[in-house]
């Protein structure tokens, strides 16, 4: 029987789900290169040109819609322009929700991730369970859960704190985010070579100092790409809030369609929604890839 040394990082955790902290990125790039060699052609990469394609789809669909609608009706682009403020206000909502959910999720998720590497088995197992639970639950289900479980206002004494739907949606979306952040943190901490722990222990740092001064600062770089990736996914997932009645862009798009009552607007309006998300998420994706490349070379 070998006892686990008290001050060492736990090495074997139940359910090791290795997140793509860093090396898997190199891995996937290598795999991609291999496939490209095999095919003898370059695989499509996310590109600003895709945005142009989207824009073209929007314009063409608007044109087609116009042709279908026939003369005498308001041109599709004019309709779109008229509704633009309503739609963009909805999109702003998506962004606000994504920001807040990410902030809350990151804050709590970091703690949860650190609890996953705690030396106390109950803390470790408990946080592992919470992480796995929220990580493997469908986002929409969590959203519904928060929507219908949380009250619409809190009463603390005589103080009434309203709790609007979009805040509930934010909380609902922050649950999967915190679970994923927890895994990112755990994965990053475990990816730091054990020599770093040994060296700092031999210098008489205590565990907390090691974690905060030596291990975590090294993790930040490794965590940034998957964290940004998660943010992009979250942003796109904010449209789920439309199903629970939050007035975000997708909801507004549906209402615009209902108000206009013109089936020919269907494609142009949804194309516009798509374009907005692309324009917002694409730079994030590019930046993530750039960061991944840079860190890969440096380490």
């Amino acid at each position, binding site marked *: 029987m*070998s006892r686990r*040394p*008290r*001050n060492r990082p736990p090495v074997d955790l139940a359910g090791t789900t290795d997140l793509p902290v860093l090396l898997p990125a190199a891995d996937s790039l290598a795999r991609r290169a291999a496939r490209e060699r095999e095919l003898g052609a370059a695989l499509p990469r996310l590109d600003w040109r895709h945005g142009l394609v989207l824009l073209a789809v929007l314009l063409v669909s608007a044109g087609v819609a116009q042709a279908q609608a026939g003369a005498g009706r308001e041109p599709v682009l004019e309709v779109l322009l008229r509704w633009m403020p309503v739609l963009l206000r909805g999109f702003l909502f998506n962004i606000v929700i994504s920001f807040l959910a990410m902030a809350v999720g990151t804050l709590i998720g970091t703690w949860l991730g650190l609890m996953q590497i705690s030396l106390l088995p109950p803390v470790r197992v408990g946080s592992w369970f919470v992480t796995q639970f929220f990580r493997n639950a469908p986002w929409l289900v969590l959203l519904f859960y928060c929507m219908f479980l949380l009250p619409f206002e809190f009463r603390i004494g005589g103080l009434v704190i309203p709790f609007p739907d979009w805040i509930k949606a934010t909380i609902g979306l922050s649950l999967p985010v915190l679970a994923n952040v927890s895994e990112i943190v755990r994965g990053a901490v475990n990816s730091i070579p054990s020599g770093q722990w040994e*060296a*700092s*222990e031999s210098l*008489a*740092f205590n565990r907390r100092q090691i974690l905060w001064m030596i291990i975590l600062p*090294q993790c930040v770089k490794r965590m940034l790409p998957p964290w940004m990736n998660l943010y992009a996914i979250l942003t796109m997932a904010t449209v789920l809030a439309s199903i629970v009645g939050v007035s975000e862009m997708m909801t507004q798009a549906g209402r615009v369609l209902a108000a206009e009552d013109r089936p020919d607007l269907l494609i142009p309006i949804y194309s516009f929604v798509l374009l907005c998300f692309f324009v917002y998420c694409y730079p994030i994706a590019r930046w993530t890839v750039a960061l991944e490349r840079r860190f890969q070379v440096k380490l």
Partner: protein
Amino acid sequence: MAWTPDQPLVSCKDVHKSFGAVEVLKGVSLDVAQGETICIIGPSGSGKSTLLRCINALVPIDRGSITVEGQEVHDPKLDKLALRRKVGMVFQQYNLFPHKSALQNVMMAPVTVLKQDRKEVEERAYRLLKKVRLSGKEQAYPGELSGGQQQRVAIARSLAMNPDVMLFDEVTAALDPETVKEVLVTIRELAEEGMTCLLVTHEMGFAREVADQIYFTDRGVIVEQGSPKEFFANAKDPRTQEFLSQIL
């Protein structure tokens, strides 16, 4: 029971350690007197590195006793952090903190662990880096230094804690041959200055030159020990003879 310098600084008695089913140390006993330089040699996997890690409590032992300055290392009540302030360790893979400069690497532990005055620590760090011949490299990050330079920063980092004994775990094994020498020179100077050193090494020439005592381990036991002269000249155990014939 107060410890006095005439007693062994580090004393291992019948140390046993297993990792799962593999017994790595099968009753190792060894004493290091103050100011002495001890080299442990032996084939890979003979438990040398594990023994070093047991001495500063990075790895717990199953049976036996290890004392440092008279204090039982594996006493559950022992303040491990206090022990580690007395025992410095240098690793094969240097293990410098990559996000800190050479100077910060050296300064970090005295400032945060010993809570010493930053200004004073900084002066000492400059002095130590000068001692390991790295003046001018204070602001360099580990990624910008060669293996040999990194290892010397690691030695300075350990010395900054003013340890009573230094453990060196195959510190030249990962280095390019041309940089091995600069690290060995540093260690020899330390030994000559009277630092108590315990080295696990494959550098036979170096061991012969600096060691006061040489221990040969194989499969978890100490097979043979002696002064460099008698050890290299007339090893008695056939295992030692075989090992030496392969190496030399």
